[in-house]
């Protein structure tokens, strides 16, 4: 009897190894790219740390740190055009900021501000999705629109390892495959869904192999290697724009911080494990090693870059705190195109009460 089982190699693709040595194919103009990316990574790292601090100080509410995942995000967002659709989760702020989201705006969500979801004009960014995996279907729909509109734009869904257990992932992959839509399904496998490790999330040794169920291609890359991520995303984007349909990318990475500021990861993972990823696999360290080896980076540049990042973060916080309050009445204008009579009366009654 012929039995179908997975027999592939599970090693993620790398361009740089952990020592920052080239072990794969560098993209064209790697140095230029790295000199754009690395300073942005530093900024993101500072932003992330500050946001967590702001939460502790009570200046913002729940925040979901992304540190450790900068390479997976920036390396993949770097391939996007402004006209591509992107459907992120709450953990993609690094990517979104790289793509053009104002850092101050990126903090509004944690502030509980209604405008947090009012994404900037001129981009096709959906607001960060809270319901795990729901945005995958939206991306597939937007990719379908790109195909019908006969552009070579594409749609990208970002999601985590946990999201692959949801029916939305499955239904979305399947729709995109059957209709051969220009969609990239980008999974940041950061090893945990809150407290649940990926091996309790799925019995498959990789996320990428799930592509086989849908008759599409899957790619597994080292998500802490920004060049490897970039190359994989280019491969997938080329396929999408060419009309070859969807690709599933698994970027193997690690969430260095807590799930959110409400989470205590010491309950479910070993400090040693975190240490190992933080020390040997930090995506910033790896890129810096390579840049240094190329003679493109030194401590002085590092210091200057950090100072600049610090200043930008401070400015973002100031802007976020100065962002004007929006009333419930104003927010409620956006439930329907026009405010229904019943809602208008409810608002009027509350207005009265407030007076």
């Amino acid at each position, binding site marked *: 009897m012929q039995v179908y089982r997975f027999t592939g190699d599970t090693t993620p693709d790398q361009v740089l190894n952990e020592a920052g040595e080239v072990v794969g194919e560098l993209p064209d103009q790697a140095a230029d790219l790295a000199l754009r990316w690395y300073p942005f990574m530093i900024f993101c790292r500072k932003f992330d740390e500050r946001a967590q601090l702001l939460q502790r100080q009570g200046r913002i509410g729940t925040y979901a740190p992304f540190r450790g995942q900068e390479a997976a995000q920036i390396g993949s967002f770097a391939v996007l055009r402004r006209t591509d659709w992107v459907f992120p989760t709450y953990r993609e702020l690094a990517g979104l900021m790289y793509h053009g989201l104002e850092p101050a705006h990126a903090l509004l969500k944690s502030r509980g501000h209604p405008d947090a979801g009012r*994404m900037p004009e001129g981009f096709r960014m959906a607001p960060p999705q809270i319901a795990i995996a729901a945005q995958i279907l939206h991306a597939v*729909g*937007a990719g379908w629109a790109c195909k019908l*509109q006969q552009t070579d734009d594409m749609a990208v869904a970002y999601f985590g390892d946990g999201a692959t257990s949801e029916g*939305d992932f499955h*239904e979305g992959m399947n729709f995109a495959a059957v209709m051969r839509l220009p969609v990239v399904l980008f999974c940041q496998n950061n090893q945990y869904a809150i407290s649940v490790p990926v091996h309790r999330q799925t019995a498959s040794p990789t996320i990428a192999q799930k592509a086989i169920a849908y008759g599409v291609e899957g790619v597994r890359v080292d998500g802490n290697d920004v060049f490897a991520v970039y190359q994989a995303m280019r491969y997938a984007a080329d396929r999408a724009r060419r009309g070859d349909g969807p690709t599933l990318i698994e970027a193997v990475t690690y969430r260095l911080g807590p799930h959110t500021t409400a989470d205590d990861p010491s309950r479910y993972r070993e400090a040693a494990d975190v240490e190992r990823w933080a020390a040997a696999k930090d995506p910033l360290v790896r890129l810096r090693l390579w840049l240094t080896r190329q003679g493109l980076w030194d401590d002085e540049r590092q210091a200057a870059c950090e100072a600049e990042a610090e200043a930008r973060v401070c400015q973002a916080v100031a802007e976020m705190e100065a962002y004007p309050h929006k009333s419930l009445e104003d927010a409620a204008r956006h*439930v*329907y195109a026009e405010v229904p009579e019943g809602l208008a009366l409810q608002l009027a009654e509350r207005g009265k009460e407030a007076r």
Partner: protein
Amino acid sequence: MPRWTMIEAIRDALAIALRGDPRVLVFGEDVGKNGGVFRATDGLQAEFGESRVVDTPLAEKAIVGTAVGLAMAGMKPVAEIQFLGFAYEAMDQIAAQLARIRFRTQGRFTAPAVIRAPYGGGVRTPELHSDSLEALFAHTPGLVVVTPSRPYDAKGLLLSAIRSPDPVVFLEPIRLYRAFREEVPEDDYEVPLGRAAIRREGADVTLVAWGPTVPVAESAAAQAAAKGISCEVLDLRTLAPLDRSALQASVEKTGRAVVVHEAVQYAGLGAEIAASIMDLAFYHLQAPVLRVAGLDTPYPPASLEDAWLPSVTRVVRAIERAMEI
């Protein structure tokens, strides 16, 4: 003017929308080659092609979820859920996504998709094919919930729904698909969303009904008239947001109301109508607002559906009860 059944009128609305607006696309399970299990999309794929009338895989969540993405990206998706009982499978995408895109993005994006679904009983369908779930959608702000009771309205309401800036859940009473014909203009016309219609004027009792129970209410009104009771029949047509003025005006006039719906009674939309009438016209009420609805059980197997459904007899009894008071 042709005399059409409701299903023909719906098909015509879809054809007009597809013809007039390149952004419109129609999709769902079996809507393409097969023309829909009720033939609502009969011949549309042949006329408009496989890229605009699309057979999807069997996945309701994905049907609604991709409609959200399509609509955000500027298309006008008209998606079909084969039977409303299977909308449960897509409840998350309907209630937590579709309904909230505008609010979540404070107007930056909208998702004006139309989700069509046949619903209601009376034609001996299998389990889960007859459920009336309008209350679930009505309780979800951001959705417009529409249900026609006659061919003319079906066409005009569906065209309005497709052109609405808001997402619309468009519920089609299976029982009325082929129940009767009426004159339906062949041109493009709209029946406005958000407005109830008076199907019969009356002075003593207001019967509030929608979709499949409108003919039930009309028959009951006719029987009541024979007994000297004058009933007004209000066809809500749009279930959310509610046409409060129409409801108020009618009950202020009659002082009595009976709500008739097929859904389970407990926490059904009839409760909201009753509560709204209390809000709007309490001092005109001469009797409690009565409800004639489905039993508080799941929709039963076919051999029991006649006993389960709100019958004309029960509505007449409720009218008499309201008058006794």
